[in-house]
């Protein structure tokens, strides 16, 4: 018999008339609502929101939380996502009333503390990236990409490059790179990777032209490999009149070791929720600051945080006529920025460098211990992550997905699967620096057992997971007959 441990929807749990929030009386002489607003504007049917008291609400969402895997509950080597531990002090600092209660339109004299924190965060990020000026406004990595590409477009418009309509992107790139370029109105040309898993410089050279607006790259790339030819790549792009975009998703590998600005990059986005330990929140909010070279500084979004020459007070600079404008309301995901700042000042120069070293060391350790069972098609050493190809298991009719699902039974979140697209049956493993040797060894043991099972009892993999609250959802049915909301 199947035991159903799922939780009903909150809408099916209520009882009419219950509520959890008590509110004060208006406390002023009240007018009839129909005297204040025209009747045609008034709601006729109330929204069917849940009706529960506080204990029932708390129990429901606590129970839901228990159905999640998270960094706080277990190993999460999800490649490209840098699921490092999120220190608790970060959350406490973001909740300080001196930050959390601030309204974005308070007088600047009342918000000098938060402006200074944001200014200093920018300065630290500029040192890490080797660039000249930054904005904290974008809400996520892909939002930072869009911002960066829009700036590139504005730059070309002002420099006789309006005919530049193409962005070149390697086939190992994150899908967001292509989508961001397309969203900004660019045509995308994908170039193949070389046998070694690096950008094919000859293919790049062939595709560069006076129509190229930018080359977008990730370094280390999504195979976890450092693009050794990066200086040649940026020189070729610049000689062709194009700019270089750096996707900072993998910055965790290189802090203190090498800087995108020194690689010749003109614009970089960072993911504070990856490299700088802010919680991923189940998919957000994160933050995607963008740092740029001198060339692109005039195009940064409005406003920029500036410091007055005279009294050193922090201000918001709106007097930037070439700015692309805004990509978001107000100044960015400030609560996330406070967490990242807390992490940055606590780690300091040595801590950040050491984080990069340990992240790379741990990835190489897993790679070395697992590569006999899960071959890695590209030569190492890898940086903070590596990509195995589970093609050898196809002989037993076991796929990368089956391996991933079986890992769930070990209490381990699987690696990223089927990405990058250029590796068949890809398993992309990123352990991060916050997992100790014991956690790494447990993962190795689980992967070894799964390999044995693939040969001895493959059915257990094909039907995995066996211990989770539900088994594999019927994705086809979900897509064919979408049910996207509760109905009474």
């Amino acid at each position: 018999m199947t035991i159903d441990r799922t939780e009903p929807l909150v809408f099916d749990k209520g009882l009419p008339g219950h509520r959890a929030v008590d509110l004060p009386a208006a406390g002023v002489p009240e007018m009839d609502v129909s005297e204040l607003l025209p009747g045609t504007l008034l709601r006729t049917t109330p929204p069917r929101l849940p009706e529960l008291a506080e204990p029932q609400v708390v129990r429901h969402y606590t129970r839901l939380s228990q159905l999640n895997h998270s960094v706080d509950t277990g190993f999460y080597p999800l490649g490209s996502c840098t699921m490092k531990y999120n220190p608790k002090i970060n959350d406490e600092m973001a909740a300080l009333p001196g930050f959390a209660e601030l309204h974005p339109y308070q007088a600047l004299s009342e918000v000098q503390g938060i402006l200074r924190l944001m200014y200093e965060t920018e300065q630290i990020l500029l040192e890490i990236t080797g660039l000249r000026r930054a904005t904290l406004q974008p809400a996520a990595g892909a939002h930072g990409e869009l911002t960066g590409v829009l700036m590139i477009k504005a730059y070309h418009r002002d420099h006789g490059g309006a005919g530049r309509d193409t962005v070149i992107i390697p086939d190992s790139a994150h899908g967001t790179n292509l989508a961001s370029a397309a969203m900004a109105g660019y045509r995308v040309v994908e170039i193949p990777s070389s046998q070694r898993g690096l950008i094919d410089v000859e293919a790049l050279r062939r595709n560069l032209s006076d129509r190229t607006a930018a080359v977008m790259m990730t370094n280390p790339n999504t195979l976890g490999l450092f693009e050794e030819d990066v200086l040649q790549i940026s020189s070729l792009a610049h000689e062709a009149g194009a700019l270089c975009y750096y996707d900072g998703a993998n910055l965790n590998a290189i802090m203190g070791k090498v800087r995108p600005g020194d690689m010749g990059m003109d614009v970089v986005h960072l993911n504070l929720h990856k490299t700088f330990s802010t919680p991923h929140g189940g998919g957000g909010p994160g933050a995607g600051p963008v740092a740029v070279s001198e060339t692109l500084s005039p195009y940064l979004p409005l406003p920029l945080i500036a410091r007055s020459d005279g009294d050193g007070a922090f201000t918001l600079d709106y007097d930037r006529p070439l700015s692309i404008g805004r990509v978001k309301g107000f100044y960015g995901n400030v609560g996330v920025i406070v967490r990242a700042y807390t992490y940055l000042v606590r780690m300091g120069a040595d801590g950040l460098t050491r984080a990069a070293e340990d992240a790379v060391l741990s990835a190489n350790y897993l790679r070395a211990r697992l590569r006999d069972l899960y071959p890695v098609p590209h030569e190492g050493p890898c940086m903070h992550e590596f990509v195995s190809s589970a093609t050898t298991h196809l002989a037993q009719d076991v796929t990368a997905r089956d391996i991933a699902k079986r890992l769930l039974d070990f209490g381990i979140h699987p690696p990223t699967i089927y990405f990058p697209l250029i590796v068949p049956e890809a398993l992309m493993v990123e352990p991060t620096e916050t997992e100790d040797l014991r956690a790494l060894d447990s993962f190795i043991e689980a992967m070894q057992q799964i390999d044995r099972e693939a040969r001895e009892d493959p059915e257990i993999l094909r039907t995995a997971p066996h211990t989770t609250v539900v088994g594999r959802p019927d994705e086809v049915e979900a897509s064919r007959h979408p049910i996207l909301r509760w109905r009474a």
Partner: protein
Amino acid sequence: MHTDDDRRRLLEAVGISSIDELFSSIPPALRRAGLNLPGGLTELETRARVEMLAAADTIPDSSSFLGAGCYRHFVPAAVRALVSRGEFATAYTPYQPEVSQGTLQHIFEFQTCVCELTGLEVANASLYDGPSALAEAAFMALRLTRREEILVSDGLHPEAAQVVDTYAAGPGFPVRRLPLDPQTGVTVSDPAYLSSAIGAVLVQQPNHLGVVEDIAALAEAAHAAGALIVVSVNPSTLGVLEAPGRLGADIVVGDVQVFGSAPSFGGPSAGFLACYTAHVRQIPGRLVGQTTDSEGRRCYTLTLQAREQHIRRAKATSSICSNQTLSALAATIHLALLGPAGLRERSEICLQRAHRLHTALCALPGVRPLVTGPFFHEFALVLPCPAAHFARAMRECGVDPGVPLTRLLLGTNVGLPGAGPAPGDAVSEHVLLVAVTEVNTPEALDRYVTAAREILAVLSPTEDGS
């Protein structure tokens, strides 16, 4: 991080003798020997450092009347307690549904709440914020109508209008302006502005001057011209105001900051986007759907992903690959705690108190409403002196009286209804936006009126005039 002993063990297993060998693929000319930053701090020292910065800020209280797109509401303790749970906060996008049912189910509940509030059929898992959701909705409407021009009401928050302009500049979609009636402050629904090139009409409810728009009239005009209408709504008003979906809106967007997110200097919060089922394949961002597992148990999963960047790459509906899950969760929990009765009650407190304050302030010498249209919990006043001067003096009396309109207009080319382009014109400088919520007590309203009377007596020009 690893101990030195563990590092040695790991290096040995890798078969190398030093950390530097791991970075040998970086060209020597590029290699750096660390960062030029201060050394690290202990947790205790870190706390002192960050608390020192927080202490430099002024924390708003019940006498703060700032709104203009970010509203201070009472947040029950249960919201933060639940949202802070590590199982929610430290998970990522639910790529593995079997171990992400918590996140998937609360997103499904969020999607349902948004549908119920807006009166539409489908909602996504959330977007970055209200303004970016508006820009995404404009793009979506252009895809659906196969047209290229966007018509934006001058009643949009100027920052939201700016986000639309910035997004539209990429593909080069022309953005036209739809003015406000200078008398009422309501967006005009004049067909003369609706050429056959317009695919998306964007309005805000209530608009940035606080005025409640006539959505039905605007929807009719838009539809007559073959365009879709996108309404950016403050969802906090929807306990009292009619659902935009029932008034003809095709796409409804907004920001759920008003449900459970601290102002936090403007972020993070979550944007939402709702539409009709017929348009779902053009929706940007994540969607969670209900299905069953092999044992027939009800479960949830990300669905209709063929719209998204990781599958479609350059042909995706948007580049967004995340959503603001935790802020959306805060909103869902806050709405579950409020229920329909609590939501309506909260709306009514804001409405009643705002009208009370409006009446009292408009009775002061030299103060008048900017426009005559109906308002909800925010309104625009014309003062007999520059609003920034008034606000500064009021703050010295412990009241933050509202947002000078010129603050919203910084860096924009948006003006006032019937006036020239701001900033810099005399009328704009005298306009103050006042927002009232349940955190502004009746006593705080009295303090506001008393202080305003005294300050205006000092600041107002002695001769009659404004």
